[in-house]
């Protein structure tokens, strides 16, 4: 009798003594599969719903951006109309101002300044506010937090040196 036949006999004997073991195994396998599929499905659905929500929010933000850009353009147009040269001159005349005549103008010599440089009546249009980029790393955030804690600890102990007491470097 080979070793394999001996093992089959043992297995058949075990099944004969407790036939429910086969059903339990099958049920466990099916349950495990169902649970795995459910977990995968849940994860997929969670991810898909988050993606969908983000996509919807993207669409909303896009629409909002367009509205804000349009409102911004409208405000710029209104400001430009209020600053228009014909309007400013008529408003100045209404307030009693008049144009300078040649005899009203006085010229002063200022050393080291070119005569030909005219005053800039308006700020240059291409000056834009520089928005700093977000460049904080985990390390810099942690060190910042530590510095804040240390400062608060020093304040608590009353050991913070005043600016006058700062030692010379």
């Amino acid at each position, binding site marked *: 009798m080979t070793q394999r036949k001996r093992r089959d006999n043992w297995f058949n004997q075990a099944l004969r003594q407790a036939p429910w073991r086969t059903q339990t195994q099958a049920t466990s396998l099916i349950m495990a599969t169902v649970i795995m599929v459910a977990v995968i499905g849940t994860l997929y659905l969670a991810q898909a719903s988050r993606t969908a929500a983000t996509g919807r929010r993207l669409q909303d933000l896009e629409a909002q951006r367009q509205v804000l850009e349009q409102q911004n353009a409208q405000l710029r147009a209104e400001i430009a109309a209020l*600053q228009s040269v014909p309007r400013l001159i008529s408003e100045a005349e209404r307030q009693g101002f008049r*144009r300078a005549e040649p005899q009203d103008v006085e010229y002063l010599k200022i050393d080291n300044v070119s005569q030909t440089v*005219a005053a800039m009546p308006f700020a240059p249009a291409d000056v834009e506010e520089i928005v700093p980029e977000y460049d904080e790393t985990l390390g810099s955030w942690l060190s910042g937090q530590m510095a804040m804690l240390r400062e608060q600890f020093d304040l608590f102990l009353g050991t913070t040196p005043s600016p006058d007491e700062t030692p010379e470097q």
Partner: protein
Amino acid sequence: MQESLNRRLSFIGAILMILALLAIYRLVSLQFADDTGYFANVAWDEYSYKITVHPPRGEIYDRSGVLLATNSVKYEIGLSPVLIYDRQGTAEALSGAMGIPKEELLEDISSEAPYVMLASRASASMGQAVLALGLDGVAVSPITERFYPHGSLAAHVLGFVARDNVGYYGIEGFYNNVLSGDVSVSDQSRIPFEATGGEGWRQGSTLHLTLDSEIQYLAENTLAQAVHDTNAEGGTVIVLDPKTGEVLAMANLPTYDPNLFYSQAAEITKIFDNAAVSKQYEPGSVVKVLTMAIALENEVIRPDSTYEDTEVLEVGGISIYNWDRQAHGVTSMTDLLGLSLNVGAARLSIATGPLNFYDGLDAFGLGKLTDIDLQAEARGSVRRPGQADWYEADLATNAFGQGMAVTPIQIVAAISAVANDGLIMKPHMVTRREDADNTVTTFSPTALGRAISEQTAQELSAMLAEALTREASKALVPGYTVAGKTGTAEIPIPGGYDPEATITSFVGYGPVEDPQFVVLIKLDRPTTSRWGADTAAPAFSTLVRRLVILMEIPPNDVRVALEG
């Protein structure tokens, strides 16, 4: 029996299994095989829609950063009657926001039409008021529109943008591709997690002009006053920096408001033409400046030369007369310019010879495009020897600006060469272009070439300034030395010249010691006088008196004191 049943069930099971496998195979092949594009397209068409993004058109600024052209928002307001349940409430709310009678709105709401337009271009305030109501069945769609905050100021320079978002005339036309940016047309998925932002579009570039809005306003006001005072049909004014070719102001009358370009009647759309670059005319006596320059350059004469002025000069079968039909005897070159003598000018061009004379005019750019960055520049026309329509008499008449066609910008560019020590600069309108990706392109002044030598230019400047002083010209400006020349041109009509009407002009520059501006004033058909000396010259003086204040140019005595 049982065995037979099992066999049959097995057979059916096998058949079903084969069918199931076939179905699975087909599904897999449809999903992954190469030839499934058709189904993918059908599916994509079902859940996608096309979006067109018109990027904001680039803005236009003057040299000091004053906004000349921008974009504003208008609203299209309409309603879908079938979607409105509370008709009374909707009509009442809309009536309050739009100022339309409630009965009229009720009629629209009761209509069977799928969509009723209430306003195609409602103002921003009205559109936002209706939007805030949040009414069912009422659609409020924003529309971006070009807006010119200064109204008609610099209308001919700027041009306008039509409702197809295409620029016409002036800067809007010439730089349309730059200003309009790149329109993006893309497919957008209706499935939220496939949503993307509008991509692929490029905002229009921003342009900074050489124009100075304050000088432009001054030039337009002065021109309007001159046209009114002389009862002219219209006119043109150009102010240019001779050292750089930058156009500081350019205007024509009659003009229009580019915000309301559509209100112009179809038959008068010629009003959109920028006459300063598009309209050809016979320049008249201002060309004597160039004739004198060419004669000096070719050493035909010297500044102190004289000639015997006669009443008439016969050339090529025609008689040349002075404007006063008088003989002036021994006349200096300065007096030739001051008295604007046709006989003397014709003698100069004949003495110079046709080859040198026309080469000289060519060097000054007459009859050639200046390539200014404005739409629809006209070339002009100067006939040359050898051409079929050139006659010997042309050599004489061309010397005083008859028998040729030029544009105002050509004359200004040519005279600016005299002011700029003989170097002719290319007239231009844009100094800087800023693209959406922050790329900045600066346009530097460009020299078109040397028309005359520095010495000739300076000698001629002195002669022109002296000529104005000798004749006590109305173009003189107290406190400043200016040089210039009047022009009175007859208007060609079929068979000759209009005996009644003229085109008068004055082109001058200053201060002669260090020229910083060239000004041309041209008046069409003035009726108070037919002479440039009485119509255009005073307007030049009026303009320059204020121009020197705006440009911060001190008078001669102050400048000498400051330099001392």
